[in-house]
């Protein structure tokens, strides 16, 4: 007997059952991969987020510690995380994170001149697959989670420590480039500044006006900290603004912390700054018959006109002059300390003009006791460099912070003796 397809009621029950079971398993697996795996991975990411928050907090404390105790710290961060291992189901690649620094300037001004101090913000940017979490920033001792570009608010994790209860302003300038991406642990080596004393701030003239870069404008954070009167200048075209503070010179404390390397000094160009500060026009740094109280020469004669002109190359000249009829010229300058460990020393002079009858101008170096360290050498017009022999160089090294330059004339006539000096410098090589 034959039946039509529609009228056929036979079935192979085990086969249909098997297909059902397989179908059910595949469905389960798909639900697991689509629902449970992302949930569990989000949980792993959230745990990492909690951990990194704790580690960034430790980093914040470590930076403060380094600047206060002047001893290094070695702080590590686990930038990313691996998801749990799975037999069934597939994970996305491990979540990597990025830590980077961004340079800005703090400026300190006395009203007429300004000193810029480079500092850096630190940004930690997570690279989660499931969670959508913004970057965590460290700027000037404030640690916060920035969710503003996601339409959320900003969460402050650690408050500012730049201004304390007594109104002191403590600035920690963070220096050196650092950038790392990955899923593993990286170390930030934090070193204190070696030369805090080399900070060359402009001379105080009442209160300093301090401008601190900040990304926190418009969040009300600084208003909550310092009251409604706080003054923030927007900076056009930049993602940061400047917070204006006014501070008495004695309440300002500066230090710097370097990442991976010692900071190069607060202003980044310490030596040049200290040279600029050295002013030969100051009474203690020159001596002639009429003015100056440098220790040498003890028996000055003649005059130095416009001594500040030798502070820098080019421009005006200082004139060492001894009028006709008087005795020979004998004037001097106190030299700034030089490098004690240099191998060679040379003396460079830029002489604009020498006017002398019969005879010459010369120079020698002495120490404060008047001991002659280098033999007298005759000066020529123009930009010339004068070298010393080994014994003389040893003597300069031994007296590196006690050097005086003596300028004198040896003439037989009695006319005007004039030496116009643009610049001189003791070079250590």
């Amino acid at each position, binding site marked *: 007997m034959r039946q039509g397809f529609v009228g056929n009621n036979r079935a192979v029950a085990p086969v249909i059952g098997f297909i059902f079971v397989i179908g059910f398993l595949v469905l389960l697996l798909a639900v697991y991969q689509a629902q449970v795996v992302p949930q569990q991975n989000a949980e792993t990411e959230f745990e990492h987020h909690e951990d990194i928050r704790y580690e960034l907090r430790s980093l914040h404390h470590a930076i403060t*510690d380094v600047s206060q*105790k002047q*001893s*290094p*710290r*070695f*702080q*590590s961060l*686990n930038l990313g995380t*691996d998801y749990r*291992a799975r*037999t069934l189901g597939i994970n996305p690649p491990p979540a990597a994170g990025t830590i980077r620094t961004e340079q800005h300037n703090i400026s300190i001004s006395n009203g007429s001149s300004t000193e810029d101090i480079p500092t850096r913000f630190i940004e930690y940017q997570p690279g989660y697959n499931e969670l959508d979490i913004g970057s965590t920033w460290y700027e000037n001792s404030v640690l916060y989670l920035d969710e503003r570009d996601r339409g959320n608010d900003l969460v402050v994790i650690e408050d500012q420590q730049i201004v304390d209860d007594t109104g002191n302003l403590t600035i920690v300038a963070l220096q050196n480039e650092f950038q790392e991406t990955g899923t*593993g*642990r990286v*170390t930030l*080596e934090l*070193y204190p500044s*070696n030369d805090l004393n080399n900070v060359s701030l402009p001379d105080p003239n009442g209160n300093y006006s301090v401008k601190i870069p900040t990304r926190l404008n418009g969040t009300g954070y600084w208003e909550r900290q310092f009251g409604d009167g706080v003054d923030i200048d927007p900076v056009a075209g930049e993602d940061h603004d400047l917070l204006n503070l006014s501070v008495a010179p004695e309440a300002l404390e500066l230090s710097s912390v370097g990442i*991976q*390397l*010692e900071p190069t000094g607060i202003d980044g160009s310490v030596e040049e700054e200290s040279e600029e500060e050295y002013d030969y026009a100051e009474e203690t740094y020159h001596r002639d018959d009429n003015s100056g109280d440098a220790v040498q020469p003890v028996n000055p004669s003649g005059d130095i006109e416009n001594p500040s002109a030798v502070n820098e190359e080019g421009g005006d000249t200082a004139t060492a002059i001894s009028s006709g009829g008087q005795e020979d010229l004998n004037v001097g300058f106190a030299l700034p300390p030089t490098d004690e*460990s240099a191998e060679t020393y040379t003396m460079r002079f830029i002489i604009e003009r020498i006017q002398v009858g019969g005879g010459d101008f010369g120079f020698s170096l002495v120490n404060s006791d008047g001991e002659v360290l280098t033999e007298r050498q005759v000066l020529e017009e123009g930009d010339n460099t004068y070298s010393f022999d080994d014994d003389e160089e040893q003597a300069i090294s031994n007296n590196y912070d006690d050097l005086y330059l003596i300028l004198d004339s040896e003439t037989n006539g009695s006319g005007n003796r004039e030496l116009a000096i643009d610049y001189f410098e003791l070079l250590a090589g």
Partner: protein
Amino acid sequence: MRDRNPSTTIWNDRRGVSEVVGFILILGILVLTLTTYQATILPQQNAQTEFQHFEDVRNEMIELRNAISTAGQADVSQFPSVKLGTNYQSRILTINPAPPAGTLQTSEAYNISISDSTDTENISTKFIEYQPGYNEITAGSTWYEHSVLYVDEPGTRNAITIEDQHLVTDGNKLKITTLQNTFQRSGTNRETVELLPNQSAVDLSDLDDSEELTVRIPTRLNETEYWDTLDEKLDTDDHVGYEHVDESGDINYLVLNTTNKEHLEINAVEIYS
């Protein structure tokens, strides 16, 4: 009389109990699956567990290294911990090997010698080795010596650096943290390492203040493997100079010089369990 039906001999008997045959087949497949699982999937999963532990221990060794430097240079006690081994995931039907145990121990002591033209001062120091005891993956020991952290892969000539040295960072100062006392722990648990600064172990009073110093630092690494990167980093006008690596003995010595005592800083850390 022969009443045996020729059709029922073993060869031409066509009767069968299909349920029994089916059961035997399914049992056979199950046993086969179980053995395949035990032989191939289980070692894979255990290797994964071991690899994760290897990553964790790498992170913890970085923390240990940072803690030693902080204890020495900032003069504060530190208490990092290292999980020496791990446990495999628990299983119902199959059998795991014994949990992998690891060993964290200090090496024998070596001398750092610092000499001026007439005198030599010796300060002893040790390295730290973490030796994993994995069953599945082959991983070499992780070594700490003078702020360098590296994995010494067996069978390869190259050490894989995890954290670079900070003996010299900017050429201005040579900072050495020495490690003293003996430490040895083995097992699968987490062990805390106590690091106590001990400045009294360092005495450089015999050396002249202004003379150039030669510093010989024991190292397991050789020049081509690692230290030539330090050579490239230092300039001739730096206060710390690179001379060479002395590879003549059982242990190598990195030879550096400093222009005087001011550019050398040595501190000591004692390690306890």
